[in-house]
């Protein structure tokens, strides 16, 4: 029996000034252990260039709007080996973090310029411009917006000639686990695009591990 698939959930507004935000729902495709691969476009005026990128989620704490993981850049020209970095993410849940970064040299204008690059942001834009999106309830929205900030190099020294000064504006699709992102660093090429898809390690389906810290 075919059933009608309802329209995608639209973000709702939190009713009442003091009402608490609904806690963010877990999305299994963004759980610990999940892997993603794709590219980061690092083209400049001089040349077109893209690095292959693998990402793995290492930790997730929705209560605190926290996510972290590793990012591996594979064909970095000046590095002999793939370069792995550890990043920490802020989930825009309007409770712990809003759409406005408020640090890392990102002004509200920079924020809006980057968020508007994601089509899934457009239903939210007006509200975000009005109050930073504080009144939005994103808990049931099928996209998760985040900022990922690389914290340290895992396998190379800081003298590797690469920088992790900037951060990524990220949009994750809960439906298919795809990730889009834009790297922001006032001193690097603007709008370097990150595109990742959920991977399955050569399996014929999805698999999920888990660990639990005590």
């Amino acid at each position, binding site marked *: 029996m*075919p*059933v009608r698939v309802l329209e995608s*959930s639209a973000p709702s507004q939190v009713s009442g000034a003091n009402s608490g935000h609904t806690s963010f729902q877990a999305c299994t495709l963004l759980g610990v252990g999940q892997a993603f691969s794709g590219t980061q476009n690092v083209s400049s005026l001089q040349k077109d260039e893209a690095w292959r990128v693998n990402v793995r989620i290492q930790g997730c704490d929705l209560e605190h709007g926290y996510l972290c993981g590793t990012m591996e850049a594979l064909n970095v020209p000046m590095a002999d080996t793939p370069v792995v970095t*550890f990043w*920490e993410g802020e989930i825009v849940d309007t409770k712990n973090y809003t759409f406005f970064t408020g640090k890392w040299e990102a002004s509200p204008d920079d924020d809006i310029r980057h968020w508007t690059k994601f089509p899934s942001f457009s239903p939210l834009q007006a509200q975000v411009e009005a109050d930073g999106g504080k009144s939005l309830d994103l808990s049931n929205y*099928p996209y998760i917006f985040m900022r990922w900030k690389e914290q340290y190099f895992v396998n190379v020294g800081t003298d590797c000639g690469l920088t992790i000064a900037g951060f990524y504006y990220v949009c994750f699709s809960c439906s298919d686990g795809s990730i889009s992102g834009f790297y922001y660093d006032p001193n690097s090429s603007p709008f370097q695009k990150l595109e990742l898809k959920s991977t399955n*390690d050569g*399996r014929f389906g999805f*698999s999920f591990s888990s*660990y639990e810290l005590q």
Partner: protein
Amino acid sequence: MPTTSASSTTTPSFSPTTSDPILDRLASTDCEIKLKAVREVKNKIIGNRTKKLSYIKLGAVPVVASVLAEADANSDSGVNLIVQSAAVLGSFACGVEAGVRAVLDSGVLPRLFSLLSVTDDKVVDATARSLRMVYQSKLAPKYDFFLEANREFLLSLLKNENESLTVLGASIVIHSCETSEEQKILCYAGVLEKIISLLDGSLSQRDASLESLAAVLKSNPEAVSKFMDIHSGRALSSIVELTKDRYSRTRLLACLCLICVKNSSCHLQDLGIKTKLVHILLELLDDPGQVGDEASLAFSSLTAEKEDLHKIAFEANAIDKFYCHLQISSLNPKRLEGIFLALADLCSKLECCRSRFLTLQALSLVVDALVHDNTNVRKAACICLRNSSRSIKNLSAGHFMNESTVIPLVQLLSDLSSSVQVAALGAISNIVAGITPGISVFIQCGGIKELVQLTKSMDSSLRLNAVWALRNMVFHAEKTCIEAVFMELTASSIANLIHDPESSVQQQTLALVRNLVDGHIDFIEYAFAENGIIFDAVGRRLRESSTAEIGIQGMYVLCNIASGNEFYKEAVMQQVFPEAEDGSKSFFNQCLQSNDSRLCTAAVWVIVNLTNPTSSGAYGRVVKLRNFGTVSQIKKMVNDPCMDVKLRARIALGQILTFGES
């Protein structure tokens, strides 16, 4: 005369080892000689632990107890003997366990209690002080508050105008009020009012009042509510005032009372009082004596599991302050334990606290304490290490995976105390989690062997935590690590653990299997080793299980196996939908209808993998799923209120529909 729940005995704990003339004089029939001897003993042992121990060894306590027992409270000489011998017995019991034991074993307690009723104030004072010393010890017999006569006697002590008697009454409450039932009976017997009234008394009455209040109110919202009802909660303001008292012990006890009220009620929840308590307790750490020792434990009871208080403490530089105290060498074990537990609390939730802790290099001091002589210190150090290693950022950087940390931790897995073993397993569970690089350090020092050994323990908490550590270890681990764990643990042991009597062990074992069969596609074969003993056990456990947690982990085992090739998908299909089973009774369909959205999601993922359109047998499986009623169940889930369930059901349905509508 009150009764105690422990029976008195008259067997002395120490037999006289050598004769001493003083013992003869104590046993003299001449009152003067006897009195002089008792005084002599009193003067020799007062404040002198060595002398106390040597007299206890000589067997002086039962002899002095006999002097007291035989003295006549109605004669002047008898009164003097009673006063002096009671003082000696109290002195023996003061701060020396062997002394308390000897006093109790002498059987003198009932006599001491009976002397509280005589008319001579000196006798009453002396015996009350002596009994107070006994009741300061954990060895003292528990006072039975459930006996009406005992409650009446206790009230008579607390109501008395004699200060020593009131303080003795409070000491009995401090010693024996432990359970919520005991707290309740004291509240409703009028004891709470009497204790509160002592707040206006002398210094010792005030301190005894505060300490006994804490005993009655601790973790008991009903008692706290009753406390707040008495005189409209005026006592609370008095206690708040006492946090500024000139005596550090009074300040500490006042804080403890306020913590009890705060933790069990809606009172004292404002930022101001919380900040104040944090600051006072941090200041009290500077006290070199018992108050300083107890301040960190009080701090833990204030901040345990409370993120807002962790933040306040962080801003008050609590971590730096505790670290400064840790750096003082030769801290006594109680203080060391308290500081580790306070640091553990602070590091339990907030990354800023963990980060500060690690920046200060406090970790090396914790690691040093893993080999401390004192069991409680070793345990507290493990707990501190466990909580500070909740930092994924630092775990991923390998900051905990080094020989100096791992070797003593692995050694603690053979500790004589099982609570230390459990605490060490907690720290190891975090440190070996697959997100940590350099696991070979742990493997090379025999860690896997030790963990596997503990999975066979008779103690279920050891089994649970050992399996938990192995589960974390094989999370996205390298092939060599996974192989090493599987070889050591074996398929049959895993199958046994899946059927462990404890459901928590079953759940962790299923999570371990889930991780084992993830990663490289070849790892799925582990579930089929030894004629599929693990795979069969998972299936049986899922059918017999009643908890969602077990269902979730078991479902993900099946999901991961079903992400393999056609052989594995068919194996899962047979396991989940056996030919003989009726779809309406299918445990799998029941999981799809669970109220727990995590279980529904896991079950839908199994269907997603089984219906993967690129696999050759998908069509046949879809037909079977329709026959079992599973497809119609999936259709109901595409508009589920839980987004994860809804989105996965849509993927599954999309795949199913590629094979047609029916």
